[in-house]
C-alpha cells in the first residue's frame, strides 16, 4: 500500500488545486456566455492547451501506449488518424464556427433551418456521442484504479467510479466552461510534462538511438520484426480482406470524427475572435502532435524494457504499459525509490487525464441539453438566461448521475469500443451536417435532420450487429451471436450514409433560405456580427 500512498497523495493535490480553481472561476460565472463559453475570454494559447487537455484522453495516453507495447506499430496508426483529423478542424470548421455560432454545435446547424427539428437532432446526437465516450472513460477509471492505486475489490472500483463522477459534476456545475477549461489546461501541462519526462529517460537509456530502442522492443515483444510493421493488431492476414477494410474504416472515422465531436467544437467558442480560434487549433496541433510522438516512444519503450508478456499479464489491453514503464525505468536508473516516485507521478497524471476528459464531456452534453433541447425546443426560445443556466447545471448533475450508474453496471463489460463508436457517430452524423451548413447553399432542414439521424442510426445499428457486441470471445456479449456485420468499425459504411442522407433529404425538400445563407456565409468568413467576449 505504501507504493500507492504517493500516487494517491499526488492525485489528491491535483484534485484540491483544480477544485480551488473551479470555485475561484465560479465567482465570475454569471451570464450564459460565462457558463457555456467561459466569457469567450481565453487566449489562443490557453485554449490550445485546453484543446489538448480535452482531446488527450486516457484512451490515447494509456490506450495507445498499450497498443504499441502489445501490438507494436499498429498503435501508431491511431495517433496519426487522431492528429491529421485536426487539419479538418483547422481548415474547414474552427474559425467559421466561432464566427457563426454561440454556445453549441446546433447553433450553427440551426442558423438557417427550422430550429426545433434541427436542434432536437443535434441535441440527441451530442448527448449520445458524449455518453458513449463518458461511459468508456468511467469504466476505464474503474479498471485502472486497481493497477494504479492498489484498490482491487469490486467495492473499491464502484467507489472510484462514484468519486470520479462526483468530481466531474462539481467541476462542471460550479465552474462551468471557465472552471472546466482551467482543469484542462492544468491537466495538459501535467500530462505533457509526465510523458516528456519518461520519454527522455527511456531515450537516454538507449543512448538516444531510436533504432536500438526499436530493435530491443521487437526482440522483447517476442514477435520479432513483425512488431515494427503494420498489421499485428488488426490481424490483417488472418482475417483477409475484412481485416484490411476494418483498418480503412477505422482510419476514416478517426480522421473525420474529431471535427464533429461536440466537446471539441464548443472549445472554439471560448476565445474572443476567429483568429484566436485559429491560433488555439494551431497550438492544439503542436501539443497533440508532440504528445503522440512521445506515446510512440513510451509504447516501444514499454515493450523493450518491461516486455509485452509482463504487460499483458497485468492488463490484457495493455492499458498499464505506461505506468509499468515508469516503474521499470525509475528502478533501473534511480533504484526502488525512483521507481515508486515515477510510477506515482504517471498514475496520478493518468487519473487527472480521465477526470478532465469526463468533465469536458459532461459540460458539452449538459450545455446542449439546456441550450438546444430545453431553451429552444421545449421553451421555444422563451427561456431566460438564468433559467437556462439553472437547467444546464441540473442537466450536468443528471448526466453525471446517469453515467455513474451505467459505469457501475458496465464495469465488468468490455466497452472500449465505445470511443471508436463516438468518433464514428461524430464523423457520420455531425460532420456532414456541419460541412453542408457552412458550405452548401441549397442545404435545408430536411437535409440536416436526415444527415444527423442517418449517420447516428447507421453507425449505432452497424456496431450492434458487429463482432464487438457479439459472436467473439472479447465481445460485449460473448455468449450471443447476432454479428452479421463483419467490420468492427462502422465508418466505412455509415459515413457515406450520413453524407448521402443529408444530400437526399435536401433535394427532396423544396425549402431553402437564400437570405439566411448569405448571412451565415458573410458572417462565417468576415466575423461581422460574431458573438463578443464579455469583459471581466
Amino acid at each position, binding site marked *: 500500500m505504501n507504493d500507492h500512498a504517493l500516487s494517491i497523495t499526488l492525485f489528491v493535490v491535483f484534485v484540491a488545486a483544480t477544485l480551488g480553481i473551479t470555485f475561484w472561476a465560479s465567482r465570475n460565472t454569471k451570464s450564459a456566455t460565462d457558463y457555456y463559453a467561459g466569457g469567450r475570454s481565453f487566449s489562443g494559447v490557453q485554449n490550445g492547451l485546453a484543446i489538448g487537455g480535452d482531446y488527450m484522453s486516457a484512451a490515447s495516453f494509456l490506450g495507445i501506449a498499450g497498443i504499441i507495447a502489445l501490438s507494436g*506499430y499498429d498503435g*501508431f*496508426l491511431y*495517433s*496519426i*488518424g487522431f*492528429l*491529421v483529423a*485536426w*487539419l*479538418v478542424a*483547422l*481548415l*474547414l470548421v474552427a*474559425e467559421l464556427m466561432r464566427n457563426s455560432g454561440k454556445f453549441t454545435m446546433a447553433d450553427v446547424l440551426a442558423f438557417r433551418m427550422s430550429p426545433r427539428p434541427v436542434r432536437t437532432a443535434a441535441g440527441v446526437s451530442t448527448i449520445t456521442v458524449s455518453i458513449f465516450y463518458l461511459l468508456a472513460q468511467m469504466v476505464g477509471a474503474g479498471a485502472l484504479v486497481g493497477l494504479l492505486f492498489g484498490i482491487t475489490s469490486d467495492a473499491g472500483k464502484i467507489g472510484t467510479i462514484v468519486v470520479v463522477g462526483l468530481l466531474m459534476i462539481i467541476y462542471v456545475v460550479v465552474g462551468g466552461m471557465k472552471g472546466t477549461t482551467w482543469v484542462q489546461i492544468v491537466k495538459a501541462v501535467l500530462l505533457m510534462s509526465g510523458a516528456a519526462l519518461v520519454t527522455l529517460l527511456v531515450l537516454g537509456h538507449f543512448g538516444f538511438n*531510436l*533504432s*536500438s530502442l*526499436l*530493435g530491443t522492443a*521487437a526482440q522483447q515483444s517476442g514477435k520479432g*520484426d*513483425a512488431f*515494427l*510493421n*503494420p*498489421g499485428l493488431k*488488426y490481424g*490483417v*492476414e488472418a482475417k483477409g480482406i475484412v*481485416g*484490411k*477494410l476494418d*483498418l*480503412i474504416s477505422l*482510419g*476514416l472515422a478517426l*480522421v473525420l470524427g474529431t471535427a464533429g465531436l461536440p466537446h471539441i467544437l464548443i472549445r472554439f467558442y471560448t476565445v474572443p475572435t476567429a*483568429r484566436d480560434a*485559429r491560433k488555439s*487549433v*494551431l497550438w492544439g*496541433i*503542436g501539443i497533440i*502532435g508532440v504528445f*503522440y*510522438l512521445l506515446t510512440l516512444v513510451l509504447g516501444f519503450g514499454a515493450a523493450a524494457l518491461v516486455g509485452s508478456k509482463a504487460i499483458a499479464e497485468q492488463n490484457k489491453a495493455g492499458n498499464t504499459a505506461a505506468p509499468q514503464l515508469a516503474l521499470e525505468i525509475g528502478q533501473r536508473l534511480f533504484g526502488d525509490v525512483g521507481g515508486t516516485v515515477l510510477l506515482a507521478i504517471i498514475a496520478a497524471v493518468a487519473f487527472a487525464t480521465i477526470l478532465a476528459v469526463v468533465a469536458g464531456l459532461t459540460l458539452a452534453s449538459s450545455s446542449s441539453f439546456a441550450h438546444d433541447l430545453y431553451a429552444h425546443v421545449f421553451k421555444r426560445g422563451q427561456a431566460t438566461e438564468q433559467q437556462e443556466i439553472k437547467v444546464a447545471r441540473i442537466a450536468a448533475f443528471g448526466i453525471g448521475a446517469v453515467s455513474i450508474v451505467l459505469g457501475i453496471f458496465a464495469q465488468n463489460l468490455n466497452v472500449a469500443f465505445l470511443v471508436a463508436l463516438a468518433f464514428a457517430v461524430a464523423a457520420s452524423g455531425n460532420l456532414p451536417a456541419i460541412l453542408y451548413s457552412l458550405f452548401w447553399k441549397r442545404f435545408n432542414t430536411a437535409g440536416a435532420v436526415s444527415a444527423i439521424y442517418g449517420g447516428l442510426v447507421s453507425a449505432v445499428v452497424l456496431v450492434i450487429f458487429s463482432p464487438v457486441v457479439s459472436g467473439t470471445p472479447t465481445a460485449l456479449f460473448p455468449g450471443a451471436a447476432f454479428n452479421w456485420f463483419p467490420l468492427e468499425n462502422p465508418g466505412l459504411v455509415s459515413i457515406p450514409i450520413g453524407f448521402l442522407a443529408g444530400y437526399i433529404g435536401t433535394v427532396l425538400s423544396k425549402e431553402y433560405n*437564400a*437570405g*439566411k445563407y*448569405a*448571412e451565415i*456565409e*458573410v*458572417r462565417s*468568413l*468576415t*466575423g*461581422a*456580427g460574431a458573438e463578443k467576449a464579455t469583459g471581466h
Partner: protein
Amino acid sequence: MTTRHDASSAYEQVQASPDFQELRRRYRNWAFPVTVAFLVWYLLYVILSGFARGFMGTKVFGNINVALIFGVLQFVSTFLIAWAYARHADRKLDPLSDKLRGEMEKTSNE
C-alpha cells in the same frame, strides 16, 4: 420581422460584392484542394498499411522501416499544412475580412 428581412438583404449585398467574392475565392481555393490532398495522402498511408505490408516493412536503415518513416511524414505534413494555412490566412484572408467587417460595422452604426 422587417428588420430581419433588411438585415438579410444587407448580407446579400455584401455577399454579392467583389471584395467578398474575392475573400470567398481565396479561402475556398486554398482550403478545399488542400483538404482533398491531405485526406488522399492520409488514406494512401492507411491503405498501404492494410494492403502493402511487405513494402511498409522494408527496412531503410537500422530498424527504421518505411512504415515508421511514412508515419512520421504524416506528422510532418500535418505541421507544415497547419503552418502554411496560418500564413495564408494571415496574409491573404485576414486583411480582406477585416476590411469587410469594418465596412459592415460602420454601416450598421449609421
